[in-house]
């Protein structure tokens, strides 16, 4: 209860600020209507909070829009946000798996081969100075010309974003066993691969999950941005672009909230997997 109270208070304050902000933000549109209806405080609220194409939609409008586009239509209909979320999530997950695997493989290589660390590691870091999200739409267009399936081209953006945190985290994790433990493996005459499987990989699991949580969030961002080029007709990113073209603010806000919900669900699922695997490995809760 002591933990929930501050969060609830801040949430409530945000909603109140949101409702209050609707009045000045929508004033451009609503002032003539309010005057026509005879003015007054009640009319101001009624028009500011129920504008059809508001500058800032009120919370209940956003949630009505989400309700109308998720629960009131079939999940596979083109109007359904569940369908669009699924399109985005599928490329997110494919990219997440590809990027995660690439990250782990790179980390294993870097830990085991000394020259790889010297030559590859600076470029792993430099690869992230390229604002890949910013050039993602272009890459999609270019990759699309090579004839790869749409899902793979979008997933490759997510994979590119994903591998970096995993590589950095796994290099740290694979090196986390201390000298005593490594010496013990040596006294057992364990080979490099045995040390990897029996000591390094188990020791790196906490690091892996910490990295994966960061990765999955940016993978979703990558997938959304990858949908921005005009070719994409489905997905959260396409909904955002569509809404911004036609000035349909409600559609943008609803898509944003559903994307946020998807992101929270992904991170939560990873957290649950982390708790489960750590418990199976004998960690104390």
């Amino acid at each position: 209860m002591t933990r929930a109270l501050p969060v609830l208070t801040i949430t409530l304050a945000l909603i109140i600020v949101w409702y209050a902000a609707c009045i000045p933000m929508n004033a451009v549109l609503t002032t003539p209507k309010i005057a026509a209806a005879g003015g007054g405080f009640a009319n101001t609220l009624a028009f500011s909070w129920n504008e059809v194409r508001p500058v800032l939609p009120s919370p209940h409008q956003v949630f009505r829009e989400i309700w109308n586009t998720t629960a009131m239509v079939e999940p596979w209909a083109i109007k359904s946000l569940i369908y669009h979320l699924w399109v985005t999530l599928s490329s997110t997950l494919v990219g997440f798996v590809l990027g995660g695997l690439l990250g782990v493989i790179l980390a294993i290589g870097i830990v085991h081969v000394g020259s790889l660390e010297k030559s590859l590691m600076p470029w792993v870091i430099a690869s992230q100075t390229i604002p890949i999200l910013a050039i993602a739409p272009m890459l999609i267009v270019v990759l699309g010309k090579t004839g790869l399936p749409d899902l793979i081209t979008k997933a490759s953006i997510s994979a590119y974003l994903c591998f970096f945190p995993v590589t950095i985290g796994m290099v740290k994790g694979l090196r986390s066993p201390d000298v005593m433990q490594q010496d013990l493996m040596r006294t057992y005459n364990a080979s490099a691969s045995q040390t990897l499987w029996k000591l390094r990989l188990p020791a790196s699991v906490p690091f892996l999950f910490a990295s994966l949580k960061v990765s999955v969030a940016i993978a979703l961002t990558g997938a959304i941005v990858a949908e921005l080029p005009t070719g994409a007709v489905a997905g959260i990113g396409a909904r955002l672009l569509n809404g911004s073209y036609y000035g349909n603010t409600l559609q943008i806000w609803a898509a944003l909230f559903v994307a946020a919900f998807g992101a929270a669900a992904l991170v939560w699922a990873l957290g649950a997997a982390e708790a489960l695997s750590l418990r199976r490995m004998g960690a104390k809760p």
Partner: protein
Amino acid sequence: MTRALPTLIAALAAALLLTFAFSRANPFTGMDWFISLLFVMATWAAAWALSWVADILMPGASSRFLVPALFGLGLLASWEAYVQASAIPVVLLPAPSQIIAKFASSVPTLAADFVQTFVRAVIPGWLIGCGSGFLVALLCDKFDFLRRGLLPFGNLVAALPIVGVAPILVMWFGFDWPSKAAMVVVMTFFPMLVNTLAGLNASGHMERDLMKSYASGWLTTLFKLRLPAAMPFIFNALKINSTLAMIGAIVAEFFGTPIVGMGFRMSTEVGRQGLDMVWAEIAVAAITGSIFYGCLAFMERKVTFWHPSYRR
């Protein structure tokens, strides 16, 4: 013997490269697969041997700068040879030489885009976002209730696809740079808040007790102990935000811009199939981002010289 072999390889590779360079005006046109493969192998061998020789001549310094530089050179050479040999059309992947030529011939355009995106949007947005995140973190530190309410939000927002706010901000602040700066503010605020809060709690109990025994107030403790102790965290946020700011400004330009800016140029040049121009913009973005990051890393070194990671 150990020195003779790499020197021999280096000499051979250098000779091969020189032959390529002087055999034609442009050594790459009309290359077939075998020759380009030879070229790539020669480049890699030369790079490898050079790094070996350099390691012997000046150990330490070479491995920090030379090895990654040579690795990158090898990558560029492979890219060039691959594009030339397989005759990939420019609309798919231009060669590095074409990109450099385009870069050199369109410096004024690139400079205008740089000013619009980096100077007008990224820098003000980054300053405002980081500054306000820092101030709110101080407020949160003073009022614990605010901290316990805001921190879960900060952690949630970190997981959200925040670039999605871009169309809304473009709608509110117009097509020009204010909407891009606003996007940067939104993207940089929460990382700064979360990191500063973590940093303010980084000083140990012993040190805080010492400050208390000196009868120092909240402000004195803040300036003499807790802020200096928080500096590694704050710089971490500043560095994360430097890349986030670039991304935010460029992505916001996809949702509507005046006819100048890096994001605008990229999206229109893709439509006109001018991929060499797009890659030139990418080069500008990468160089700017690296210099931005490098400046912050340098400042971090000066400010947090006491941190264990800089000790020798």
